[in-house]
């Protein structure tokens, strides 16, 4: 299933945040969206997943989601959004309960995704017992459980320290290598963008519009921490963003 974003514009009470964004995301690709703070990256993600209505334009699902996809458009949130009163397994189970799959089948899915995210030993732990990185692993496991056609990742590593971030990037690459998934990955961190993105979409400052799309051809599995080949695209991205970021920084909030 592909996703087509077709001329989306959006306003919040008179403030234009997104202007005429068009973008195609094809199957099995990770598209990173970067841009200065307040450029509407997260808003764009909420629009794509149907959590908000666009002011104009539309988001189209091209083709049918794969058979067995319980929730084609699935989010991974920056703040994890785990239910603190449910265990790790319970949090994964939550998103399976409304789909009328039997208890045995659900348990099989839970075991499988917890194994894929190396969480099998923690299935009965409560979120308060987990570190930030582990919490985000649970959120990733929960997202994988519904077999999504498109993962919408809203700064998933921004709440984590830099070492944990590296570990989780490795995990994400390993997950993708084993079974390629489609994702839109919003971040302000250019390092993450060049490590994980097949393409990187640069948004301008508010009102956000597509400034440039950079393709990075090196296969994900061959990219590594401090990769020299990624230096050039990262530098290029930073040059694109530098002035935008400076200008965005100098703007008044709600100005």
């Amino acid at each position, binding site marked *: 299933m592909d996703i087509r974003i077709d001329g989306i514009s959006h306003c919040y009470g008179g403030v234009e945040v997104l202007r005429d964004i068009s973008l195609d995301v094809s199957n099995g690709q990770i598209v990173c969206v970067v841009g200065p703070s307040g450029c509407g990256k997260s808003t764009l993600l909420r629009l794509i*997943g149907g*959590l908000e209505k666009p002011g104009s334009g539309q988001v189209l699902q091209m083709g049918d989601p794969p058979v067995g996809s*319980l*929730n084609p*458009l*699935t*989010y991974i*949130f920056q*703040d994890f*959004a785990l*239910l*603190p*009163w*449910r265990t790790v397994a319970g949090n994964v189970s*939550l*998103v399976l*309960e*409304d789909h009328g799959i039997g208890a045995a089948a659900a348990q099989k899915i839970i075991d499988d995704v917890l194994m894929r995210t190396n969480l099998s030993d923690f299935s009965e732990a*409560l*979120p*308060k017992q987990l570190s930030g990185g582990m919490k985000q692993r649970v959120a990733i496991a*929960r997202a994988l459980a*519904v077999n999504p056609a498109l993962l919408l990742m809203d700064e998933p590593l921004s709440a984590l320290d830099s070492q944990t971030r590296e570990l989780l990037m490795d995990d994400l690459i390993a997950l993708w290598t084993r079974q390629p998934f489609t994702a839109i990955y919003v971040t302000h961190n250019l390092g993450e963008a060049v490590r994980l993105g097949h393409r990187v979409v640069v948004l301008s400052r508010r009102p956000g519009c597509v400034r440039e799309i950079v393709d990075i051809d090196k296969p994900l599995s061959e990219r590594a921490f401090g990769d020299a080949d990624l230096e050039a695209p990262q530098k290029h991205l930073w040059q694109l963003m530098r002035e935008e970021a400076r200008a965005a920084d100098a703007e008044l909030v709600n100005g």
Partner: protein
Amino acid sequence: MAEKKLGRPVAFRGGGFAPVPRRWAGFAVFVSLILVAEWGTRAGWISALTLPRPSDVLDTFRELYASGMLFKHLGPSLSRLVVGAAIGVSLGISIGVLIGLFSYIRSGLVPLVAAIFPIPKIALLPLFVIWFGIGEGSKYALIAFGTFTPTVVATYGAVDNVDRTLIRMGQSFGLSWWSIVRKIVLPGAMPGILSGLRISLAIAIILLVAAEMLGAEYGIGAYILEAGSLYDLERLFAGVVILSVLGVVVSFGIGLIERYLLDWRL
């Protein structure tokens, strides 16, 4: 002598502002207050009319227990308390959740709740007698009405405080409306609802005495009122002590429920 640098230890200036439970402190306060009263009444610097002697109150209580009257009073009171509070709390939680979830119900009922909250429910007792009869009905209604308003206010406040990102998460995974309410909103509101319950149930005990002012032969409230009108301070205090103990027991019970239901909290 070798020149040694003399260091001065940095003075500690953090700490405090973080109360920790001291198990016996509460007990010690009770005991010392009672001992002071006992000493004062025995030594004579507290006259018998000012305060009854604690040991006399204890004797009265023992008498009450030995004659079997204690449970004759306690039984009806407890059943009134349980039935009245159960009606008021369950209605209050339901209405509170509805106010928390629906804009029209919120706009329609919040002013009404604000209007009936400050009414001293005791003032409405005659009305309740007309509506529900002089028997148990009016007593249940009074206690139910008194616990209803604080429960509503606590519940909709608690629903308002449920983390919106969790609700968005539920929606983004395609959970049904009812699932979101049952699995995200209600558990998320539980801490606020339970702390509201502490207040509601204390009010229920206060109203129990008021409810038994009218046409109750037995009950802690009736016992206290009778003692009060006879200026029998020992019996009055024995009754008051029972109410206090009831309050402590209820609060302890809610503490247990909190520990069981809310062990996921940090």
